[in-house]
């Protein structure tokens, strides 16, 4: 038995407050929703969310499965990490495969090679097949202007669509997760966390992360000012020069679209220092898919995206 290392006067630190809030949300859904599932991408946010789920139900196992929407364009390090983590926690893993959906004719490959858009129907199909009623996502409100307006419990219709003008009022911490048959809710336990909170928590809790997040020398090409590491999905085009550079990833999305940033941060502490002095948002810095328009995220969410 030990005192919690809080601030004076029975006050919690910001990470203790956020942790308590997220655990409350995870338990509320587990108690009220018939068949929840936790979306796990192997990225830092979903890693933190999975760790919070572990804590919320300890010493019991996490009482719901974990789902990965596999675009077939994953960094191998991320898949390896996913399998290791899921095995350690003893949770069931559901894989919703975009390549399988393409093969089955459910979705069609887009000409630009991005599977960002077509992963939405694959996700919705898996939700329907498995009868999931609540989906935990690791999205944060500080990521994007549309996300800043979304509720912690985000109601979606039978097509997974978000209606930003008709959101349920969300009062205090009294969440309303009621749905009709066929509908679902998206739940964002990390809504109030910022990028720095996530990293601060990873450092504080010594949570393991895929090595992609830390700097190392990688072979890269420069495409329109963004650095892409050469891998099985990124091959140098004519006229592109491959050079070695110390880089790391700030976000981990599809391997054919996620750029790396020049960095010498080889530890989590150094990553925190780097982010704290950096002046670009993580999505602005590394995600080709969000640059289409100012309302790109809002439009994708309306179609059922996370």
């Amino acid at each position: 038995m030990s005192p919690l290392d809080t601030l004076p006067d029975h006050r919690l630190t910001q990470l203790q407050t956020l942790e308590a809030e997220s655990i409350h949300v995870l338990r509320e859904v587990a108690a009220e929703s018939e068949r929840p599932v936790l979306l796990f991408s192997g990225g830092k946010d979903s890693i933190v969310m999975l760790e919070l789920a572990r804590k919320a139900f300890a010493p019991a196992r996490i009482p719901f499965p974990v789902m990965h929407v596999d675009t077939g364009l994953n960094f191998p390090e991320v898949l390896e990490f996913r399998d290791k983590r899921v095995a350690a926690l003893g949770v069931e893993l559901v894989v919703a495969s975009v390549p399988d959906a393409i093969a089955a004719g459910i979705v069609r490959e887009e000409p630009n090679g991005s599977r960002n858009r077509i992963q939405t129907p694959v996700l919705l199909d898996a939700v329907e097949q498995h009868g999931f009623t609540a989906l935990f996502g690791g999205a944060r409100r500080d990521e994007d202007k549309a996300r800043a307006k979304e509720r912690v419990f985000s109601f979606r219709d039978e097509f997974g669509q978000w209606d930003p003008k008709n959101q349920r009022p969300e009062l205090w911490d009294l969440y309303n997760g009621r749905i009709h048959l066929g509908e679902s809710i998206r739940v964002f336990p990390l809504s109030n966390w910022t990028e720095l909170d996530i990293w601060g928590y990873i450092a504080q809790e010594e949570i393991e992360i895929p090595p992609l997040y830390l700097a190392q020398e990688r072979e890269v090409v420069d495409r329109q000012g963004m650095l892409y590491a050469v891998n099985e999905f990124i091959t140098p085009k004519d006229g592109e020069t491959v050079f070695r550079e110390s880089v790391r990833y700030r976000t981990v999305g599809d391997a054919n679209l996620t750029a790396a940033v020049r960095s010498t941060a080889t530890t989590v502490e150094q990553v925190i220092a780097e982010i704290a002095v950096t002046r670009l948002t993580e999505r602005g810095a590394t995600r080709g898919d969000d640059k289409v328009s100012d309302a790109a995220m809002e439009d994708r969410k309306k179609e059922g995206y996370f």
Partner: protein
Amino acid sequence: MASPETPVDVHSAAAEQAHDLAVARKDILRIATAGSVDDGKSTLIGRLLYDSKAVFEDQYAAIERASHGDYVDLALLTDGLRAEREQGITIDVAYRYFSTPRRTFILADTPGHVQYTRNMVTGASTADLAIVLVDARKGMVEQSRRHAFLASLLRVPHLVVAVNKMDLVDWSEDVFEGIGDEFTAFATKLEVSDVTVVPISALLGDNVVTRSANMPWYQGASLLHHLEHLHVASDRNLVDTRFPVQYVIRPQSDAFHDYRGYAGRVAGGVLRPGDEVQVLPSGLTTTIAAIDGPDGPLDAAFPPMSVTVRLTDDLDVSRGDMICRPANAPQVTQDLDAIVCWMTDQPLQPRQRLGVKHTTRSVRAVVKDVQYRLDVNSLHRERDVSHLGLNDIGRVTLRTTQPLFIDDYHRSRETGRFILIDESTNATVGAGMLTPPRH
């Protein structure tokens, strides 16, 4: 597009300092603002975000491109939805995050018009502090009174009246004092314990982050300084022990064969192992055997911690039950008397049946009576009303199918509140704040 930037020198003194600030142990202050575009609310928030360096270069470049006129329109930082940008209005609550070396802030940015009262109530429901914006040229108007009233209704413990656009009244002390007096006179009708009035210019930054050189007559702190130093530790109820059971943890594994824990969030008071407790509705008493926190056993738990409580005796306890102290229990009742904010087009009226969610307990209720409707502008009580319409606030009595374990909202925000749910649409249609029982 710019070429890839040079990497941050993570070994520099500046980086080390930034790291230390980022991981410093701070608390969180939750703020609600209300206002319309005309008040300069978006500009004020943009200013707080920009001056506290919560705005990134790519975000700033985007609003610089979108700004018309002589200066960068900081208000554009906060308009999130396409319809909001197109119509130049704020529709829904948006949450913003910024921090200073002393504190982290979560700001609920809500629209100000009367038709968005429900959004304002949503934003204020979680706030420690509300900022009411007043245009120095116009003084207290209907909207500023309504915002102050809603904040007091929701029991937001601290209120700041930001008298904005001081640059447009020649930084006049007389104008500022006049508005301060006007507000003080109005506030006597409200239940707010802590009010601070600050003269600012959100557009020019005066008294937002740093003290203004244009208003030497003002002796108080800048707005941000006030937000950073506000004392909030005594806002919570650490007296009345309330632990609504949220989820029962039973590992059913060999290692934890006999483990039976009651998970939940502490709603009030301080729980300690060894405490004698009572479980409602059974009324049985036992003692706390152990409290498990996110990182292991704890010697105390208090709001807003999420913990798991283990009891000495093997009682039948499930979700929706309440753990309290035998000598200090909430009221157990099926009759609710509450101020309700109604949030949907279909009116609230007697004989209507609704879902109720109070702490972790969900029941049904029938509306017995609508006693009065409050005019949110004049605070006048209109009696002889048959219903509450969208955005109306009034006093309502309800009868529930099962007892709830309630407290007066004035004493315990956590156990004195509930939401109303339309069971056919599943929409959240009302927010209720329980009032003291009548004697």
